[in-house]
């Protein structure tokens, strides 16, 4: 894997930079950087469009059928000498915010992910260089049944921090917890690839006892509230009997008298669902089985090339069942929390710091070098930067934008690609022109959207405004998302064509265009980008552009209701496949929020699910992305994100990767030279 990336890094040099990176870094480039070098051994490459010579053969789909898992621990990433033992193995980093929770089922963000990686271990974990899945708590797995069945073998020496053995049943319990309605899990859909998981989560598995689904409030018989998930017994229905096959709308009108122990009451039929007990018949139908203590079998509803990656995700992390059963909500605190990761939570002072210490029960304890990790939750970059300068933290994962010129001169500054795109959404919902109701709104005209895109000088934005090394984007899928998918070269910056298109659409020189507002959420970086783009559009197209700065939640609300003209947006991929970027733009997709609808595009994305053949798959994605970023432009891509920060050279073993995920086991402290 790492070799491939390295060669890609070489490829990157093609194009404008070829001359700079002299052949020495080219194809052969062996592992120069043992642990001795701070420089990441090989960044995930940036295939540079046409310049990519012989893109590595597509690796999708993996060879189905029984195959052994990769061996796991990669010696290459361990310290070569014992030199590091002389130094205090303490790493202090800024996590950027106070984490929401330590409960894997309920967590959603990246900062939470960094923390949970320290205290819990999924069946797979991220490879420190490529971020592809490699063995975690599972020592091996077998994929069978055409990619539908995964059989994991859990390590014999995997232990919880209290000494208990990590069992397959623990994983089953944890995933049940994610799928059952309590506690509500925002990311439960991550596990919906598993057979019947979605149906179970929604209570749609038949032949199980009925339970109250939601809104128990309305049932309150005799003032006693029935709780969600309580198993109930149907006493009487209205009308009696209920008609066969009513529509969902109709079904809501039917009510049912239910009994639950001593309590009883009437509920709407739609409130009754299958029950969610762990050992009930409903969950038995879900494709998660633990036939042995160390064997976990997972059946998927259809083959998913990125399922192993899902297992490294925070939602798939295990919890210790006895602790959770005993302490409930209190189980996720220092002193109570039990995890199976390389570290244990020593103390947690909210808004101050979290301290982790090496977990002596961890199976790979001999390979864990850091004794202690301190996570600071400083949100504001100014004090965080001051902390770095005063040597109070060793690693900052972001830098203050306003001081970027100074920060770039700091030797510890690093920048690397990230799998994410910064773009603007355009409101494409059909609606009339505000000044002239007989015409459609200009933004519904794709020529206008193309004009807006081409009138943006994205290179200038990256070099003069954001300045941290962001990559101008004319496509939507960021480079490095998949080795077989190079970034799309979309519409170029071309002011003349932009003007011509605008004139063609009936707004020569911007005449007749209503004022367009850019909505962005309150943040300095969004503001400067929006101001620059507004200025470019005004100068290049002659249209009037306003800015609308809204507070985060207000912004989200407006985007959700498609109540904007142009809205700033960003998307970080969930897994290493273009699908994570492209499937969101289907008609009425949950994250579409532009009102854009394109039957051909929908068809293509639907077809991708069935297409297994790599070139075809790639072509399908390519056609879809072309519709998105060249023909239709419901979004205006601006730049691909980078991860940037400051890291002391003594922090070793951190390899920049496209998901910005750095397993703690690989990191150690050793001053330079």
């Amino acid at each position, binding site marked *: 894997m790492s070799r491939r990336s390295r060669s890609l890094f070489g490829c990157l040099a093609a194009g404008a930079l070829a001359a700079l990176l002299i052949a020495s870094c080219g194809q052969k480039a062996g592992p*120069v950087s043992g642990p001795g070098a701070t420089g990441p051994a090989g960044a995930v490459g940036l295939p540079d469009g046409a310049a990519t010579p012989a893109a590595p053969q597509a690796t999708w789909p993996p060879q189905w059928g029984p195959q052994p898992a990769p061996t796991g621990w990669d010696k290459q990433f361990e310290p070569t000498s014992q030199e590091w033992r002389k130094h205090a193995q303490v790493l202090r980093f800024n996590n950027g915010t106070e984490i929401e929770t330590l409960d894997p089922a309920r967590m959603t963000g990246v900062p939470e992910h960094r923390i949970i990686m320290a205290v819990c271990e999924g069946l797979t974990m991220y490879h420190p260089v490529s971020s592809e899945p490699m063995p975690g708590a599972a020592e091996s797995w077998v994929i069978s049944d055409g990619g539908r069945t995964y059989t994991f073998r859990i390590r014999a020496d995997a232990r919880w921090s209290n000494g208990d053995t990590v069992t397959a049943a623990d994983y089953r319990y944890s995933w049940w917890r994610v799928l059952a309605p309590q506690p509500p899990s925002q990311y439960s859909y991550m596990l919906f690839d598993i057979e019947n998981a979605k149906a179970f989560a929604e209570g749609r598995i038949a032949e199980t006892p009925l339970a109250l689904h939601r809104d128990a409030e309305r049932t309150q018989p005799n003032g006693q509230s029935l709780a969600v998930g309580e198993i109930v017994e149907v006493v009487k229905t209205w009308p009696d009997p209920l008609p066969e096959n009513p529509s969902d709308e109709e079904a809501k009108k039917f009510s049912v008298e239910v009994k639950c122990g001593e309590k009883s009451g009437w509920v709407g039929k739609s409130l009754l669902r299958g029950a969610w007990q762990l050992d009930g018949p409903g969950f038995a139908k879900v494709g998660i089985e633990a036939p042995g203590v160390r064997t976990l079998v997972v059946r998927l509803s259809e083959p998913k090339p990125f399922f192993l990656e899902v297992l490294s995700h925070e939602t798939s992390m295990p919890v210790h069942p006895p602790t959770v059963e005993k302490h409930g909500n209190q189980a996720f605190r220092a002193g109570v929390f039990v995890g199976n990761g390389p570290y244990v939570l020593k103390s947690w002072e909210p808004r101050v710091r979290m301290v982790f210490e090496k977990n002596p029960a961890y199976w790979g304890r001999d390979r864990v070098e850091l004794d202690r990790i301190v996570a600071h939750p400083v949100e504001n970059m100014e004090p965080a930067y001051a902390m770095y300068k005063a040597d109070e933290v060793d690693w900052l994962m972001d830098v203050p934008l306003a001081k970027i010129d100074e920060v770039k001169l700091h*030797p510890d500054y690093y920048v690397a690609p990230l799998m994410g795109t910064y773009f603007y959404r355009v409101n494409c919902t059909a609606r009339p022109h505000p000044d002239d109701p007989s015409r459609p709104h200009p933004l519904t005209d794709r020529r206008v959207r193309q004009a807006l895109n081409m009138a943006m000088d994205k290179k200038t934005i990256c070099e003069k405004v954001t300045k941290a090394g962001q990559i101008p984007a004319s496509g939507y899928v960021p480079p490095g998302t998949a080795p077989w998918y190079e970034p799309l070269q979309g519409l170029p910056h071309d002011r003349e064509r932009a003007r011509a298109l605008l004139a063609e659409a009936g707004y020569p020189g911007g005449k007749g265009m209503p004022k367009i507002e850019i909505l962005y959420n309150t943040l300095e970086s969004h503001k400067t980008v929006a*101001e620059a783009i507004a200025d470019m559009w005004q100068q290049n197209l002659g249209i009037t552009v306003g800015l609308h*700065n809204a507070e985060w939640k207000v912004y989200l609300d407006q985007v959700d209701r498609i109540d904007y003209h142009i809205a700033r947006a960003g998307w970080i991929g969930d897994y290493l496949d273009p699908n994570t970027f492209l499937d969101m733009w289907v008609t009425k997709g949950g994250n579409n929020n532009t009102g854009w609808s394109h039957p051909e595009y929908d068809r293509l994305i639907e077809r991708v699910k069935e297409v297994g053949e790599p070139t075809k798959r790639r072509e399908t994605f390519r056609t879809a992305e072309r519709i998105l970023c060249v023909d239709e432009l419901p979004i205006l891509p601006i730049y691909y994100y980078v991860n940037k920060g400051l890291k002391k050279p003594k922090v070793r073993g951190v390899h920049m990767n496209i998901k910005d995920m750095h397993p703690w086991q690989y990191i150690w402290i050793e001053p330079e030279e």
Partner: protein
Amino acid sequence: MSTPAAPGPTAPPAAATLSPPVEGVSLWADARRRLLRNRMAMAGLVVIAVVGASALLAPWLSPSDPEMHRFFVLSTPPGSSHPDVRDVALFSTDAPLNAREVPDHLVGLRGPHEVRLELRRLKEEEYRAVITRSGRVKQLSLSEGAVGTARVAVAGPDEFFLQIGPDGHPVASPSAGGGPLEVHDVTLAVEEDLPPGFLRPGEGEGRWVLLVRRARARVETAQLRLEGDRVSSITVESPGERARDVAVLEVRGGDVRGLYLDGRPILARHLFGTDRQGRDLLSRILYGGRISLLIALLATLVSLVIGVCYGAVSGYVGGLTDLLMMRVVDILYGLPYIFLVIILMVAFGKDIVVLFIALGAVQWLTMARIVRGQILSLREREFIEAARTAGAPGYAIVFRHLVPNVLGVVAVYTTLTIPAIVLQESFLAFIGLGVQWEGRNLASWGALVKEGMDSLGHGGSHSWLLLFPATVMSVSLFAFNFVGDGLRDALDPQQKGRT
């Protein structure tokens, strides 16, 4: 300002008859006399007049549009200048030039003229290399965001040539093989005058950061012929190529090194420098003054009117009314005003009007309390007793006897309110609730100071971005305070007849 200066009614007859007889100098005339004698206050008044006038006349005084981005300039220190090319970005032979597209120098020109443009077409790329004490290249990053360990060869113009040899050490001689880069211009990102090839010591121990900007340049000359208000021809000449006529010429700021009209260069000067987006700081401060002062004055007025009336009535009437009224104040005070502002701004947009109403609506509470506090202690005084005995109605006692007597404190507090509101506004800017008006971000002084603070490097870079707005803001606030003090001394009725 105008309120105290205007000659108002003198002390009412009821009170006057009971006061010791004085010369026929009215309270206000006396106050004016005192104010004029107070040098600091007068100086403050002058400053306020200057600041007020410049804010009022900002559109005429400011050298450029405060929102104009100049990506080719970015932040430059005070006094810098560059060719003013943004507005001649496009000449077209078939459309008449309108005033917006022509620099002032060209407006009004009639008859044939020639404009000569010297262009430099630049292709810039930035590289960043971290070099260790021993000179080994540790990390090379490219502007595109890639990172890797690599050997780098950077060739400069004739006098500067740097190549990192195979052993990772810089070699100070041109390499035979491999071929040097086509680099025409290498800029070291250093302030000091370092000899070519030497690197700026970075902040880490014994390590350096080399920022190399590689620029390929090609010099071209364009000749514009102006006839009347039209451009009749554009000729572009590049070295080694034949001169060619073009219909459209795009001149991007960064590409232009000289713009000549009859041999004189046309330059844009930035007296106070430019901000990180290349916007003229002086213009921004002038416009910022407008916004800050407008918000402060209107909000103060709102708070003054409501606060004084409310406090006076509450304090004078006392009893249950006072209690009720103060309870209302307490309740409003307890409301987290940031919510008030956020909710108001959400409901009505982040509009400037919303902001000053919100600020004024918060400030009057304190004003009311202070006035009430004063009135509480004043209402037991003899002269109020006297007025009451003389049968003066309640409103007359409050507004003709009590209120003038608390004007000293009110004036002092008003001068505290104006800076307070300017600061409140900057506080809102700090948490991201900057003012907007008709889809523009309004950069008030507070917002400029905040921007300056954010930009201020730990090594003191970009200091002008903080220094100028902060100074202008502070001096204005100083002025308000001194004028307030002067007013206090002048208006204090207790001192009347005692000097």
